[in-house]
């Protein structure tokens, strides 16, 4: 792509992902035909990825405020108060399309992007997590993508120096041609040390910092807003290349610069690079911006204005500085060996002006570039809610023990050790609970305070009933935080869906957002940041609706935190919450009975938010009072799987002798009813505990006792926990090491 004299044809407009009516809007807005550079700028600002044009209407309905929310959605990341003048800054963002095209680099730059979002606000990253979804294990590309994505996540985070402490890994055929890489990062800052992107003051220098600009990633954001066809392999040039070393230097240089008092405003160059960052800084501050591209540090010769404005080269920042501090700022960046160049200034005319080689390459109204982006109220169809599936209509297995062993070794249930041992989960020395816990727990300073982090969603529930699925994603996230003893503070969401121009896909998006909103309101769990990824389709087939939730919780005394492993023999095992034996959309139904999610019309387990809150608040209070020895939430696979996980984590068996009452045994064992926890405690405390639960009308049933090397369960021959562990740990390494067929 070279000359600015290129004619703006309908084909060229279409290539930029702009619809004819959107192009007409541009013509109306500027009163003339745009230059090629201007067309590129519009396509970057108005694509789905940057403008949220299909989702904005519905995102506005989410609760985003609360007593602890310092900064909500709209900035680089959300900011939440964690007492003592400190805040936690966090966000989750997708890098799905690039990770499918180039798994290692796509995932690596996804991690790099989210870390940059966090430290751009003045926070030092203290935890990273990631939710990864891959195609069916037997699909020929899956192992290649798993291997590359996991390598990229680790390669970037390990080198950068942030502990990767948790996340999710799942498989489903709907991701065969469109994997999901959702990266979460959280950073710590002082409440009075937060930096925003809003520029203030006319005539101030705009400074370019970090790595040089190359031709990589041009039109990355536009790519992320289109479906894949057969030509996905040909899109490789639009994937960026990550350099975690440069990012680590950029982190240290930025934090040092911020401490010097030189920074007025800062914005990282993420999607749509220089265009998006410069426009946002100006538009938010009601200022114009003038850039002189002759000053931009370039990696390659002969780059055009068009290329520079759309490059998504990584590890770059844009700042507005106090002019009197410019020399000091430059010295800091030189010390870290990074580029530093004044490339423009703020103006008072609300124009976004781009100069290159003495020519004006773009001259556009800056507010309208952002504010006047198209916004759609896309048609959507009412989603299905699924059919009731009575438990006795689902086949029971012959031996529940054999079934349990099999379930623990399923692709979606097996240990993810193969994955998380490739991530440095211990760096910084604050990891109290790493991967494999209900939620990760990371210490903050040395006052006993800690933060809990988790990522959750059950896409098969969302597929069967988007509204209940959306509620469940929030509830499970909240429950996982609660199970460590943390108080859930706030959440970030990463909404991954198919093509919103299809009413049934739009219906999934609307349903999930409504469900998320309802749950967040009921659980006082505001959403402070997030990201939407649409067009996750290949050859017309969408992924399962996947609204991943990232939750953050706070505990004031890390010494009282709960863990999942059984602790001592002879302790009481209590099941909190009611078990109705809901098998619809369960792992048992899908993977043991064999009903594929795509064909499964059954309803997912309903989420009663009042019960969820009641049970959770009770469990948390009991943990904090030091009454419980082990706590685990119940989710995929139900009761028997949760018991097995507690036995494997503690290296201790248990005997379960509860009567399952009216509920068929297999539904009692594997049903996925919500709002449930398993807890253990010494026998001495049992009576008082049960009374406290009864006073609150909470279902708390003694179901058994810890002890021995075996798990003895109704309907099953006793199984040693070591045998379960062998099955649980075996699947992933065997899958990745198997011969290529």
């Amino acid at each position, binding site marked *: 792509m070279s000359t600015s004299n290129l004619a703006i044809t309908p084909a060229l407009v279409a290539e930029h992902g702009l619809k004819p009516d959107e192009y007409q809007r541009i013509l109306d807005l500027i009163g003339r035909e745009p230059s090629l550079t201007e067309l590129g700028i519009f396509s970057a600002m108005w694509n789905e990825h940057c403008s949220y044009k299909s989702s904005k209407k519905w995102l506005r309905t989410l609760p985003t405020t609360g007593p602890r929310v310092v900064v909500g959605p709209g900035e680089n990341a959300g900011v939440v108060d964690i007492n003592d003048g400190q805040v936690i800054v966090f966000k989750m963002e997708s890098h799905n399309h690039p990770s499918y095209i180039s798994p290692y680099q796509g995932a690596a730059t996804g991690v790099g992007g989210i870390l940059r979002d966090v430290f751009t606000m003045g926070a030092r990253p203290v935890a990273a997590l990631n939710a990864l979804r891959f195609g069916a294990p037997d699909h020929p590309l899956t192992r290649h993508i798993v291997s590359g994505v996991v*390598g990229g996540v*680790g*390669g970037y985070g*390990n*080198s*950068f*120096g942030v502990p990767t402490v948790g996340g999710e890994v799942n498989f489903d055929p709907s991701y065969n041609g469109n994997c999901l890489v959702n990266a979460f990062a959280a950073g710590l800052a002082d409440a009075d040390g937060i930096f925003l992107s809003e520029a203030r003051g006319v005539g101030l220098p705009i400074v370019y910092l970090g790595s040089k600009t190359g031709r990589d990633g041009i039109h990355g954001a536009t790519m992320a807003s289109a479906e894949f066809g057969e030509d996905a392999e040909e899109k490789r040039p639009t994937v960026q290349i990550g*350099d*975690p*070393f*440069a990012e*680590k*230097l950029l982190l240290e240089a930025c934090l040092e610069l911020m401490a010097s008092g030189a920074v007025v405003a800062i914005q990282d160059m993420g999607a749509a690079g220089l265009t998006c960052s410069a426009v946002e800084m100006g538009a938010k501050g009601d200022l114009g911006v003038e850039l002189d591209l002759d000053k931009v540090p370039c990696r390659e010769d002969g780059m055009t204005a068009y290329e520079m404005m759309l490059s998504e080269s990584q590890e770059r920042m844009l700042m507005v500085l106090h002019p009197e501090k410019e020399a000091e700022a430059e010295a800091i960046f030189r010390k*870290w*060996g990074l580029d530093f160049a004044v490339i423009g200034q703020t103006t008072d005319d609300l124009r976004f002006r781009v100069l290159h080689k003495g020519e004006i390459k773009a001259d556009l109204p800056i507010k309208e570039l952002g504010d006047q982006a198209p916004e759609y109220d896309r048609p959507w169809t009412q989603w299905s809610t699924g059919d009731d599936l009575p438990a006795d209509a689902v086949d029971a297995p012959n031996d529940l023990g054999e079934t349990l062993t099999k379930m623990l070794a399923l692709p979606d249930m097996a240990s993810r050790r193969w994955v*998380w*041992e*490739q*991530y*440095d*989960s*211990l*760096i*910084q*020395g*604050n990891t*109290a609970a790493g991967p494999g816990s209900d939620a990760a727990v990371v*210490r903050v300073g040395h006052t006993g305070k800690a933060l809990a982090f988790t990522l959750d969603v059950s896409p098969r529930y969302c597929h069967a009933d988007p509204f209940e699925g959306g509620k469940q994603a929030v509830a499970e996230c909240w429950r996982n935080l609660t199970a460590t003893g943390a108080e859930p503070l706030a959440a970030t969401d990463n909404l991954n869906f198919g093509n919103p121009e299809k009413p049934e896909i739009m219906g999934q998006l609307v349903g999930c957002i409504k469900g998320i909103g309802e749950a967040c309101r009921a659980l006082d769990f505001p959403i402070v940041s997030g990201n939407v990824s649409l067009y996750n389709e290949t050859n017309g087939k969408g992924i399962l609706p996947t609204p991943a939730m990232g939750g953050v919780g706070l505990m004031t005394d*890390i010494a009282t935190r709960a863990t999942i492993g059984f602790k001592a023999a002879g302790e009481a095992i209590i099941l909190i919450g009611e078990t109705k034996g809901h098998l619809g959309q369960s792992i048992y139904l899908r993977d043991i009975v064999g009903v594929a999610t795509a064909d499964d019309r059954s309803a997912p387990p309903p989420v009663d938010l009042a019960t969820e809150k009641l049970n959770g608040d009770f469990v948390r209070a009991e943990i904090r009072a030091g009454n419980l020895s082990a706590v685990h939430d119940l989710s995929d696979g139900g009761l028997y799987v949760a018991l097995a996980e507690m036995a494997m984590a503690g290296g201790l068996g248990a005997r379960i002798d509860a009567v399952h009452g009216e509920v068929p045994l297999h539904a009692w064992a594997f049903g996925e009813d919500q709002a449930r926890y398993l807890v253990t405690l010494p026998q001495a405390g049992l009576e008082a505990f049960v009374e406290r639960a009864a006073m609150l009308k909470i279902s708390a049933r003694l179901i058994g006792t810890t002890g021995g090397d075996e798990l003895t369960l109704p309907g099953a021959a006793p199984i040693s926990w070591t045998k379960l562990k062998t099955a649980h740990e075996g699947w992933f390494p065997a899958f990745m090491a198997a011969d290529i067929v």
Partner: protein
Amino acid sequence: MKSAVIVFPGSNRERDMLYALETITGVKPVAVWHTEHELPDVDLVVLPGGFSYGDYLRTGAIAARANIMAAVAKKAADGVRVLGVCNGFQILCESGLLPGVLMRNAHLRFVCRNVDLEVANADSDFTKKYAKGQIWPCPVAHGDGNYFADAETVKRLEGEGRVSLRYANGTNPNGSVNDIAGILNAKGNVMGLMPHPENMIEPLNGGTAGRGLFESVLEAVA
């Protein structure tokens, strides 16, 4: 005990090391930037973990040629204790202060997990607080920790008691020859190891056995 921690571009466990040294010795260590030519008067110099220079070219290869390394070599020659952890071990090997190299892990993947370390030499300035044969848990986190040296060098290291720590109980995570996790120089005042004792110093880490290494130096210089 006074100590200094060298910081290279891309070092990322220097904060863990600074914290461990201050916690255990009671004295705040000095952080020294790689462009310096001189080191302050200290009893211990530490090269911390990380990805100096992004691990580009070869792990530790570029850092081994940084300005400060001449001063580190001088301190080592003067008998000052020098400790290299993870990337620091790689830098010590690349700079010739320790023999051998750290290759890519045998399975070619980064690995972060706890391993069992056996104290093979409990007489050194870095291990004297442990008992010979003592086994303690310690985390590793590296992609290039596969220690290798030619057969003659390995024989000499073993013969001279210069293998200070060994992976035990089948927990060798990277394919290192003779399960070597840590080695000493001929004078015994320079040690390099791949595991991270600085991340095993308080109950939160799951144990405190890593303290012994720092306490050994503390006792040695007293």
